[in-house]
């Protein structure tokens, strides 16, 4: 049986294959060495990921592709862009075949639209422009159309898969991207002048110069990932006190981010919620595993100790920079909407929004995972339980957001 998603996966393959078939003969015939050099440089650029916050990244590759465009025309542009993106995915990122084809399909769209823009506006010097102005215009148009397309596709993907509001995603991506876009326009034009005046070897060296100068941005992006991984690691250490809650914090964090994005919160707040949800149980570090694993009712003393964990979590992260911003929502993540929670008995809107989101995510995960004394509930069952307590334990707004996304959590 061929289902629709199978067919949907097939079309990028057709597009990519067709694009290579059309572009390859023309692109490599004129000067194979130049195309090979630009492709190699493109792969090197692709290795240098420049993170745009948590939502995406860009690379310097289109800059090199532009030089190929100026020198070898549209088919050289397509060949360099496509082959280098496919090679980089396979060599450096070790993606699966489907992912590579998916990425290449998006690349074809961006390359195609920017080619059209190039040949319509900038490719034919109809207006009287100086050589420098003409090339600058071409560089700006190609880069802007290329990146505009790429970013639009990324925004569409984020809003489809993550439930983000498109304008939120676009704003966050653009805020990180614009300085790099300016550098890339200048770099593309500069490189193409170097290519036409000084030859291929110097162009290669100049591209290496750009990569070298940009290396700290790659380091910077990776460091953000390392921090999150380390936090996940510490959270997992605490979750392991009870083998049945392994990876609980990581899942709660994923659910909470999803809920927050569905509710249209700004990305900075989403990041705080991501960290807060990850760290919400870190205070259990000081509670004996015997109490945490106890299947029956807790004694009053044990209950007091257990209930202290949200305040302890907040106390642990409060003095730490970055994490400290999430301390308040962690402290109150067991407050109930009707004011019957702990530690402060806050009610309604007094409770930080992040806390209300974490509470729902936490409850949802607790309901759907297996416990020694019961099997986990199905997703619709879990949603029903939570819905029943909307307005008493849970914030009705957050529960509504859960209704929209619970099937895909």
């Amino acid at each position, binding site marked *: 049986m061929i289902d629709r998603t199978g067919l949907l996966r097939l079309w990028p393959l057709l597009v990519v294959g067709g694009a290579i078939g059309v572009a390859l003969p023309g692109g490599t015939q004129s000067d194979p060495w130049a195309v090979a050099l630009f492709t190699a440089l493109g792969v090197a650029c692709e290795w240098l990921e420049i993170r745009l916050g948590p939502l995406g990244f860009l690379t310097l590759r289109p800059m090199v592709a532009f030089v190929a465009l100026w020198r070898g025309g549209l088919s050289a542009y397509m060949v360099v862009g496509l082959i280098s993106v496919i090679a980089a995915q396979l060599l450096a990122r070790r993606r699966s075949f489907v992912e590579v084809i998916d990425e290449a399909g998006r690349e074809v769209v961006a390359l195609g639209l920017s080619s059209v823009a190039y040949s319509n506006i900038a490719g034919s010097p109809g207006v009287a422009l100086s050589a420098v102005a003409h090339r600058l215009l071409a560089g700006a148009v190609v880069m802007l159309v290329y990146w505009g397309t790429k970013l639009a596709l990324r925004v569409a993907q984020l809003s489809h898969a993550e439930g983000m509001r498109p304008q939120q995603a676009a704003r966050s991506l653009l805020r990180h991207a614009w300085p790099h876009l300016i550098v890339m326009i200048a770099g593309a034009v500069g490189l193409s002048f170097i290519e036409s005046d000084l030859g291929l070897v110097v162009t290669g060296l100049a591209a290496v110069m750009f990569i070298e100068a940009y290396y700290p941005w790659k*380091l*910077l992006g990776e460091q953000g990932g390392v921090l999150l991984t380390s936090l996940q690691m510490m959270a*997992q250490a605490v979750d*392991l006190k009870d083998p049945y809650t392994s990876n609980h914090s990581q899942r709660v964090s994923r659910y909470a981010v999803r809920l927050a994005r569905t509710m249209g919160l700004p990305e900075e707040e989403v990041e705080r919620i991501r960290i807060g949800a990850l760290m919400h149980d870190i205070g259990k570090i*000081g509670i004996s*595993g015997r109490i945490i694993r106890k299947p029956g009712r807790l004694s009053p003393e044990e209950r007091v100790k257990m209930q202290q964990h949200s305040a302890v979590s907040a106390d642990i992260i409060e003095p*730490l920079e970055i994490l400290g911003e999430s301390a308040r929502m962690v402290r109150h993540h067991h407050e109930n909407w009707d004011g019957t929670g702990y530690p402060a008995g806050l009610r309604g809107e007094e409770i930080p929004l992040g806390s209300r989101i974490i509470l729902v995510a936490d409850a949802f995960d607790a309901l759907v995972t297996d416990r020694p004394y019961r099997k986990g509930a199905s997703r619709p069952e879990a949603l029903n339980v939570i819905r029943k307590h909307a307005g008493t334990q849970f914030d009705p707004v957050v529960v509504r957001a859960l209704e929209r996304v619970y099937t895909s959590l």
Partner: protein
Amino acid sequence: MQTITGEVRLLVLAVTAVATIGIVAFSDQIRWQEWQQLVLFFCLIALASSVRIADPRGRTITPSTVLTYLAMYVFNAPTVLLLVAVGRAVGYSLDRGWVPWRSIFNGAQVGLSASAGAYVFGLVSQGAGPIPEARVYAAALIAPLLHQTLNNLFVAIGVSRWRGTPFVNTWYAGVQALFWPNLLSIPTAFVLAILYVRVHHAVTLAYLALLPFQWMALRLYVRRRELYAQIVDGLVVAADANFPLGKGHARRVAELAVAVAREMRLGEAVIESVQFAAQLHDVGMIGKDDLLDRPVLTAEEVRSLEDHVKVGAEIARELPRREIAEAILYHHERFDGTGYPGGLRGEEIPLGARIIALCEAVDSMRSGMFPFGAAMPWGAIVSLVQAEAGRAFDPGVVDAFLRAVAAGTVHARRREPSSEAFSSTATLGGIPVP
């Protein structure tokens, strides 16, 4: 106050004298007529060598390397000697203060090695046409390498005489540490040189415009790494407080491990991963707190306790650097092969794990932690470590530890965590405080 004696003084005087004689003797070959370019370059080099950015690896880098290479490509040897020697000396003392012998020696030795590079560049590329050909590329590669090797040679002679370290090792370590970053500066300098000659010498200024963009990332990166280290440290301190007498244990083990690793002259990257591994070595113990307060453990409970290395490694496996997880997994191996979990022996045990094994034992002994009942006197600890060389511990690590003891970088005083941020946490949440 830094003072120098004997041979070092001789070296300083010799290098300075050679540089001065070189400038005076060949002053007729210096292209004074291009004075605008000379002034531009002098200012750039002085400025660039006065700016230091903390490098990810804990060293400092300055943009002056690229400019020195550029000078070697575009000027003749005497001009380079003058520009680089004076420019570096001025920049160096702008940044670190004017200590006559140090500033002049630094300028002179960099100037000499750079002018040697410029001389070789001229020799190899002599007669080449305006479009670069193969031997120009070869010359562009050889000249900086020669410059760096000579530069490191001068520094190594000085440092090895001053600190009494073996000369060849010091030289090699210097060359090795800077080889890749310097190699990556060559394309940049070469492209700038071509633009300098073929377009205009003001292009160098355009390069300077790119630098702030690069530094912004570098600075953010270094800052974020500090934050990261702080956060891991903070969380680990919180985790330690879980155990009787454990408060600050991970941090102390990490301090010991760094001191020992430095004594072993490991690279900064290795030291850093040893440090993280030492901080996290008992992260797998977090779930096993209830086992530690029992008087007697069953065989199964002992096995569960020993499993903390596997749990810890499993947790740390998430980190991008695999050697951290490896060091955690094997930190209870013994050098003679009788440890757990794998019964590895000798060099089969990762180096980080061998270092942590010793440091963890030392800290447990001096603070009376599990399984040692009470704090031991420092002298007894040192002789016990010595006796266990080749049995529990790697003799090489033991040697480094003893050297660190002799040098005073590790000592008996049980250092409390320097930040008291967590003391309130410890009482609030019912976390047992020793």
